[in-house]
C-alpha cells in the first residue's frame, strides 16, 4: 500500500455490501481512492457496476458498510459528489451554459461565480462556441461533454463516471478521453471511472480495480504507471491490457 505523505486517502469504502432480497449483488467491497487520483473500475457484463455506483453516490442505500469522504459519511447534500451517467443528461430547456452551471446552482454557488466557473470549464473542453445554444442543437458527443463539464464545475470531492463514452465511436472516444485526462490533471479532481472497456481503463487510469462476477467483490488491483500521453501500441501498454483482460474473462 502506498503510504506517501503528500497524497492521503480521500475516499474510503469499507465492506460495502448490497443485497436485494436473497440476491447479493455487492459482497464486501473495500478500497480507497487517494486525493486527485483517477481510478478505473472494470468488470464483466452484469457484475453490478451500476448498483455499485448507485450505492457510492448514495442514490441507493447500501445494506452494509460505509462510504467515507474525508473521514465523514458521504452525503450528497454536504459533499460535492458528481455523477456522469451513461446517457447524456442535459436539461433540454436550458442553454449549454446554464446546463454546465446547473450543478453549482443546486450547490448554491453565487450567480457571478457560477457563470465565471462555467465559462472557464467550457473554454477547457471547447464548448465555448455553443454556450448559448440549446442541447437539441448540439451533437451527441457535445451532450456528454456538457455533463462532464457540469460534473467538474462543482469542484467535486468525488466524481463518478459510468461508461460516459460507451456510445461513441472509437476516434471520438480517444479524443474525449484525452480531454478528460487534461481536465482531471488541471483541476486535480478525484475520479472514479467505471467502464467495461479494458483499453479505455488502461488508457486513462492511474490504477485499475477489477471486479468479479456476482456476488461482486474486488478481484485484483493493478497500478498503471505509464507516462502520459500513453501510447496504445507500446509493448508495456499492450502487456497491461492483456493482463487486465485475462483477469476479467470468466470463460
Amino acid at each position, binding site marked *: 500500500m502506498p503510504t506517501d505523505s503528500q497524497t492521503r486517502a480521500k475516499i474510503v469504502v469499507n465492506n460495502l455490501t448490497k443485497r436485494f432480497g436473497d440476491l447479493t449483488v455487492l459482497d464486501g467491497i473495500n478500497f480507497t481512492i487517494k486525493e486527485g487520483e483517477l481510478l478505473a473500475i472494470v468488470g464483466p457484463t452484469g457484475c453490478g457496476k451500476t448498483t455499485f455506483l448507485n450505492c457510492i*453516490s*448514495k*442514490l441507493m442505500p447500501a445494506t452494509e458498510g460505509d462510504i467515507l469522504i474525508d473521514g465523514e459519511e458521504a*452525503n*450528497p*447534500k*454536504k*459533499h460535492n*459528489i*458528481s*455523477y456522469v*451517467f451513461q*446517457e447524456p*443528461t442535459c*436539461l*433540454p*430547456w436550458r442553454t449549454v451554459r446554464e446546463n454546465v452551471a*446547473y*450543478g453549482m446552482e*443546486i*450547490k448554491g454557488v453565487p450567480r457571478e461565480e457560477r457563470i465565471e466557473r462555467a465559462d472557464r470549464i467550457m473554454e477547457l473542453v471547447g464548448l465555448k462556441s455553443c454556450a448559448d445554444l*440549446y442541447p*437539441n442543437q448540439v451533437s451527441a458527443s457535445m451532450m456528454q461533454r456538457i*455533463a462532464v463539464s457540469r460534473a467538474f464545475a*462543482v469542484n467535486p470531492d468525488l466524481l*463518478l463516471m459510468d461508461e460516459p463514452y460507451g456510445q461513441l465511436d472509437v476516434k471520438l472516444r480517444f479524443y474525449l478521453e484525452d480531454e478528460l485526462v487534461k481536465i482531471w490533471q488541471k483541476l486535480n479532481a478525484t475520479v472514479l471511472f467505471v467502464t467495461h472497456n479494458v483499453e479505455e481503463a488502461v488508457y486513462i487510469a492511474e490504477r485499475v480495480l477489477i471486479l468479479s462476477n456476482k456476488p461482486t467483490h474486488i478481484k485484483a488491483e493493478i497500478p498503471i504507471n505509464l507516462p502520459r500521453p500513453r501510447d496504445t501500441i507500446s509493448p508495456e501498454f499492450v502487456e497491461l491490457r492483456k493482463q487486465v483482460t485475462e483477469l476479467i474473462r470468466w470463460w
Partner: protein
Amino acid sequence: MAYKEVVVKKPLLLIILPYASLILFFGLWQAVVQFGIIPNTLLASPSQVLTTFIDKLTNANPDGATMGAHAWTSIQEAFLGYLLSLVIGIPLGLAMGWFNIAEGLFRPIFELIRPIPPIAWIPLTVFWFGIGLAGKVFIIWIAGIVPCVINSYVGVRMTSPVLIQMARTYGASSWQIFTQLCIPSALPMVFGALQLALAYCWTNLVAAELLAADSGLGFLITMGGRLGRPDIIVLGMICVGISGAIIGFVIDQVEKKLLAGIRR
C-alpha cells in the same frame, strides 16, 4: 448551390373535390327544404338560417336576447369555468405527479369523481346555486379540471428518471427537483391540456345551458326547440360550432407563442 424545389403535382380532382363536396352538401340541404322533401317545420334551409341570423343580431324576440348577448353570456361562463379549472387543476396535477402525499390524498377522490359525466351535476348545481352564472361555472369547472389534472400528472410522471438521479447526486432537494426538472418537462403536456380542457368546457357549457339557463347559446337552441323553430335551432348549433372553432384556434395560437417563448 440552390436547392431545387421539389414539386409534387396534386391531381386537379383532389383540389376540386373538397369544395365540390361542401357545395354539394349545402346545395342538397337547400334543395331538400326548398322543394319540401323535408317539411319546413323540421329543418330550415341555409338561406333561412342566414336570414334569422341577421335578424337576431338586433332583434331580441322571440327568446329574450340578441345574438350578441347570448354569445357573451356563454363566453363569459366558459372562460370563468375554464380559468378556474386551469388554476386549480394544473397545480393539483403537478403536485400529484411528484409528491406521494398529494397523490395519496387526492387521487382516490379524483378517480371517484372522474367517471361522473359533468352534466350529471346539473341538478345539484341548480339546487345549490340556482340557474345563474355560478352553477354553470361550477359545471364547466368540473368538466375542465379532469384533463388538466391528468395531463399535468402524466407530464410529471414522464420526467426522465436519469435527470432526477443526476439532480439528486448533486444533492438537490425534493422541491428543487420538482420545480427545476419536473415542471419544465411537464410543460408540453400541460399545454396539451389547455386545448383539451377548453373543448370539454365548451361541450358541457352547451349542455348546462340546454337544461338550466335563461340566456346563452345553448338556451337559444332549447328555445328554438320549444318554439318549434328549426331555423333558430340550426342557428344556435352553428354559432356554438363556430365559436368553439374560433376559441380553439385562438388557444392554438397562444400555445404556439408560449412554446416558442420557452424555446424547446
